[in-house]
């Protein structure tokens, strides 16, 4: 069983569209994260959720919104996609905030 899974793996869309990326973890972890990795491979944290409460909200545009229907899921919704949103987005989870993180396989988003 995959510990942290993301769907879709690839997402190609037009500017201005709204899209969602789903993330699920079956590890029973309390904290989940979303990261953005740009073309230079710099990994930047976007959000983290601990027991469904937002802990960190980096200075990301409010077009990005995390949604957590339950402890095992943290989805990322993006409104009005822009060219600069093109990147690989990784979901991760840990048993506690700041603990060992298990990463998903990533979602490569391309905005045309």
């Amino acid at each position, binding site marked *: 069983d995959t510990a942290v899974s993301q769907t879709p793996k690839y997402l190609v869309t037009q500017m201005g569209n709204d899209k969602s990326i789903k993330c699920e973890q079956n590890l029973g972890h309390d904290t989940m994260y979303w990261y953005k990795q740009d073309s230079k*491979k710099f990994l930047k*944290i976007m959000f983290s959720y601990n027991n469904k409460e937002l*802990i*960190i909200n980096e200075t990301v545009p409010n077009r990005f919104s995390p949604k957590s229907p339950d402890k095992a899921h943290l989805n990322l919704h993006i409104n009005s996609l822009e060219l600069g949103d093109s990147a690989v987005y*990784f979901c*991760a989870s840990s048993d506690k*905030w700041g603990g060992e993180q*298990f990463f998903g396989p990533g979602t490569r988003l391309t905005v045309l």
Partner: protein
Amino acid sequence: TQLLEQSPQFLSIQEGENLTVYCNSSSVFSSLQWYRQEPGEGPVLLVTVVTGGEVKKLKRLTFQFGDARKDSSLHITAAQPGDTGLYLCAGAARNNNDMRFGAGTRLTVKP
């Protein structure tokens, strides 16, 4: 802003050589982690260090956390092509709920 600076940014060596990569910050971290990322995959944790001065060994990899918990190093002995990848350090600072990754060291080990 707590920045984690990794050096070198790129490193290309021959199989069998030793190497050290560094992760430095001006801030104190409650814990520091090292990850390795291969192309097309997510980062995978190698080690977590939490105590100043701590040294951990993982086969040919030796990790050290600075006494002041502001920096860390990763030493690889007798590097192998399978060690090729992007090595990332990540620091967690509980006092301000901050967690950051360094920009990474891209290691290439040539056979």
